[in-house]
């Protein structure tokens, strides 16, 4: 379906958030937080990109894209009025209905925050349905942090703590430097009644899941969003196979209890 670029925000030197709306003949398509779209740049190719906007506004499709290859590079250079192809949404999203009534710990690394943002919007909209919300966001450096202004707004909300940490920083950074797991001891939650949503580099998610289970969070209450090379997005081509699962069709969000053993395998 054709979608038209309506706005773009440069988040970091190599990362842009695009706002798309349905083009001629296209209809808005509802999505669930955690799902992704296949975005096509005409003449170049197609990439899987998670949806990072508000699920309550399906006519305003938001994707945050880092320039990593020729297609994503082209997307970060798009100007208003440009047209892209969109098919989707695909995949299983964050199980928000399953975690109602619980404290929620969200841990994002790098561009792991955009797929989690729709879940945060949903929880904030139904704030009373959830307990404490603890968000830990790790990034390479202060200049690689996305959604800076919006995060400042979240920090001011009661019952929500947002911690940021980076891998390295210069002297102008007064925040934390170190692993996201080093910030977990500061997070307040009731482990047996806590769910966790993790998205980011796989090694970061693995260490975080281990730290959470060590603190008493049940394995089946920890959910990870995996990233694999997705091509068809409908579970046919096998590019994104992860053990017995297809990340595009069965994921990208999986319970830690189901995939823990595969995270320890070198070649999956």
């Amino acid at each position, binding site marked *: 379906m054709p979608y038209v670029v309506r706005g773009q925000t440069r988040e970091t030197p190599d990362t842009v958030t695009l706002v798309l709306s349905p083009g001629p003949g296209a209809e808005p398509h509802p999505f669930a937080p955690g799902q992704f779209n296949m975005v096509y740049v005409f003449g170049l190719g197609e990439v899987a990109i998670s949806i990072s906007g508000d699920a309550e506004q399906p006519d305003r499709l938001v994707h945050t894209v880092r320039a990593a290859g020729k297609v994503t590079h082209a997307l970060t250079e798009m100007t208003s009025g440009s047209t892209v192809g969109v098919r989707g949404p695909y995949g299983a999203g964050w199980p928000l209905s399953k975690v109602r009534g619980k404290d929620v710990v969200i841990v994002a690394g790098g561009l792991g925050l955009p797929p989690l943002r729709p879940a945060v919007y949903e929880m904030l909209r139904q704030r009373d349905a959830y307990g404490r919300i603890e968000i830990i966001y790790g990034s390479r450096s202060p200049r690689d942090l996305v959604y800076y202004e919006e995060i400042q707004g979240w920090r001011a909300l009661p019952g929500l703590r947002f911690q940021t940490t980076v891998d390295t920083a210069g002297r102008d950074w007064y925040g934390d430097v170190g692993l996201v797991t080093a910030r977990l*001891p500061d997070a307040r939650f009731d482990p047996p009644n806590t769910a966790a949503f993790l998205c980011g580099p796989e090694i970061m998610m693995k260490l975080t899941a281990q730290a959470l289970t060590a603190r008493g969070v049940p394995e089946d209450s920890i959910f990870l969003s995996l990233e694999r090379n997705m091509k068809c997005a409908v579970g046919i081509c096998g590019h994104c196979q992860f053990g017995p699962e297809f990340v595009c069709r069965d994921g990208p969000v999986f319970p830690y209890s189901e995939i823990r053993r595969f995270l320890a395998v070198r070649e999956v």
Partner: protein
Amino acid sequence: MNRNHASRDGVRLADHPFVKDLPAALVASMSRIAVERSFETGELLLREGEPAREFLLIVDGKVALEVATPERPRLTIQTVGPGEVLGWSWLTFPYHWRLDARALKPTHAFSVDSDRLRTFLNEDPANGFQFLLHLLPVIAQRLENTQFQLLDVHGS
């Protein structure tokens, strides 16, 4: 600022998370040779190359561990906060700091005389081993942090 007793605003060195579960006799010995120190924002707690003469247990505030190279600005590689400890160069020869540590905000810490602490640990290997078991996770976390930085997982 230094004060010669190991209790700050009712907080005793014995209450610090690092010494919890250490043998009581060792904690008592550490308390006797500890002073409290305060650091203003921007003040250096440790300076690379200088003799490592103290073991710092952070009570509140935040400290940046910095490395300096001639061709680039100082880089913060880790921050340390309340309940954490700072510095183990005093345990290994030649007992010189290998990093700078700078307060990112007003910081208070217990400072244990590391020459005397090392003597305690040498004279009582059982206590020394227990101390090392407490320090090892701190070192392991620093190594893990370094691994992440080398892998550049967020940038790849």
